[in-house]
């Protein structure tokens, strides 16, 4: 990226000072209140520690162990499934945002946007309860509907079925439109000049073509943002599993984040949990950087 002319005239020290003046507050807050407490967790990953007795230095022992841990391996595979699903399911949000963007009546659009935001006030607990009352094999809504349709053989045990459980958890994202992502796309589309669409309309581009060749490329930057958010969430998240399935049946829905949580708070292996956390961190970082590289390459191509 070429430096702006004005900046180029400055000496590096001035540039640095100017840059620091802007980023220092954020950086300092982040270093002091986020990174610093986190180091406790990072250095624990080289110890065996139960939370109260003296921590024992084990070097890379925890990581070695992690390599041979079959539960962790299962958890990684499950994570890969959830990650793939999360990436594929980013697309309904893109479509919804574009459709919303194309609604011309600004007042209506405003109302829709507010409606998109409102689900953020619904607490996790209510969502969990709702799905519990839908998935429950005995009194849940789904099985009752299936029975009402006269197909009692098709009833499922849903979360209790090792083959279905991951799909069930993924389906809890229905309708797969995320408020934040949608509004970020919308912001991206809105910041592009209207004239671009006018030109497209003059060229006689249909709605699908406009979507593929105009809107989609325009929000590539926003897509990248949301992709990274999605990757991070899918790789480190575990809340739903903790409440609904405990990683089961067996380990069918176990994910690394939940395994880390259990290792710390159920078996008091704080050092081991920290090493899982650090491993997850490195993996997310690599995958994120790879995906960014991939997009950079495709953009340049």
């Amino acid at each position, binding site marked *: 990226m070429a430096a*702006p002319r004005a900046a180029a005239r400055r000496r590096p020290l001035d540039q640095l000072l100017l840059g620091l003046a802007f*980023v220092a507050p954020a950086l300092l807050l982040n270093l002091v209140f986020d990174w610093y407490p986190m180091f406790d967790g990072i250095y624990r990953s080289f110890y065996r520690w139960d939370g109260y007795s003296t921590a024992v230095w084990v070097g890379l022992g925890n990581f070695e162990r992690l390599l041979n841990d079959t539960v962790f391996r299962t958890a990684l595979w499950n994570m890969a499934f959830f990650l793939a699903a999360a990436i594929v399911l980013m697309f309904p949000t893109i479509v919804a945002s574009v459709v919303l963007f194309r609604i011309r009546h600004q007042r209506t659009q405003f109302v829709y946007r507010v409606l998109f935001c409102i689900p953020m006030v619904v607490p996790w607990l209510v969502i969990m309860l709702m799905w519990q009352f839908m998935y429950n094999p005995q009194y849940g809504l789904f099985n009752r509907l299936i029975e009402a349709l006269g197909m009692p053989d098709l009833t499922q045990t849903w979360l209790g079925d090792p083959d279905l459980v991951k799909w069930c958890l993924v389906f809890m994202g229905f309708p797969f439109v995320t408020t934040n992502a949608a509004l970020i796309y919308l912001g991206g589309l809105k910041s592009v*000049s209207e004239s671009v669409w006018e030109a497209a309309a003059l060229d006689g581009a249909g709605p699908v073509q406009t979507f593929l060749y105009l809107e989609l490329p325009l929000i590539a930057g926003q897509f990248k943002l949301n992709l990274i958010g999605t990757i991070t969430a899918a790789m480190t998240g575990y809340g739903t599993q903790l409440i609904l399935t405990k990683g089961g049946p067996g380990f069918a829905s176990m994910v690394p984040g939940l395994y880390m949580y259990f290792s710390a708070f159920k078996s008091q292996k704080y050092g081991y949990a920290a090493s899982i956390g650090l491993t997850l961190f490195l993996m997310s970082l690599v995958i994120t950087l790879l995906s960014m590289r991939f997009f950079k390459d495709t953009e340049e191509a």
Partner: protein
Amino acid sequence: MATQVQARRQRPFPWAEALKHATIVLVCLALLFPLFLMVMMSVKDKEQIVYEFFAIRPPFHLENYTIAFGYIAPLISNSVVLAVGSTLLTVSVTALAGYAFGRLEFPLKNLLFGILFAKMMLPGIMNLIPSFTLAWKLGILDTPLPVILFCAGTSQPFWVFVMRTFVAQQPRELFESMRIDGASEFQNFRYLAVPLLRPMIALMSINVFVFVWNDYIWPLVTIQSFEKRPLTVGLAYLTQANPGDYGMLTAGYVIAALPLLVLFFISMRQFIEGLTAGSIKL
């Protein structure tokens, strides 16, 4: 100006517009269903929750609201202080940093950005005690500061990234023209970037606000005086006093959500203003 542009984009098929509305309405219905369910739950007693979760029929237990209100009401103003303070600080430092990372060139830029960026992927389930120890050593316990400062420290990485992307996307000429007029970089930020970023600032504010609004454990441990604690503590008391009474608890959630709804309307207005500001360029 904007309306003129739209008038020209009018298409001959009204059903195309109808289809768009239908799609969005369907999405909204699906998105809002949990909220609807939440309101319905909030007027049910324990028995109705267990025996008829999806049914809507009287009696409606409005007393859930009066009881829940008693727990939450005295703490709402504390939550407002915490959430407003956290949002203001977090948003201002984030916008500044996002602008610099997206706009300026300076040594160490990539390294400094990397520090923020990497933090996004580090799961932090075990830093409660280290964080608390830090807040204690700083002597800021029992004030809103731990909530505000730690929020500003932990919740910005993703949003710095968002701001950076939006700033970097803008045509360089826009800033160049101002620069030539002798505007300082800060004036650039204040008069060009902030209006441009307004939609994202609004969105970020909502996110940070909602996060602090719903946070429980951290304010609980750092604020010892009950009368300074946020409303989530009231919700926890409500839960413990009425075990398994999801109707009552949900009523509490509904009450807690009302200020958020007001906030959404306000920030979405910002969003619209941001859009008009956005069309200034070029």
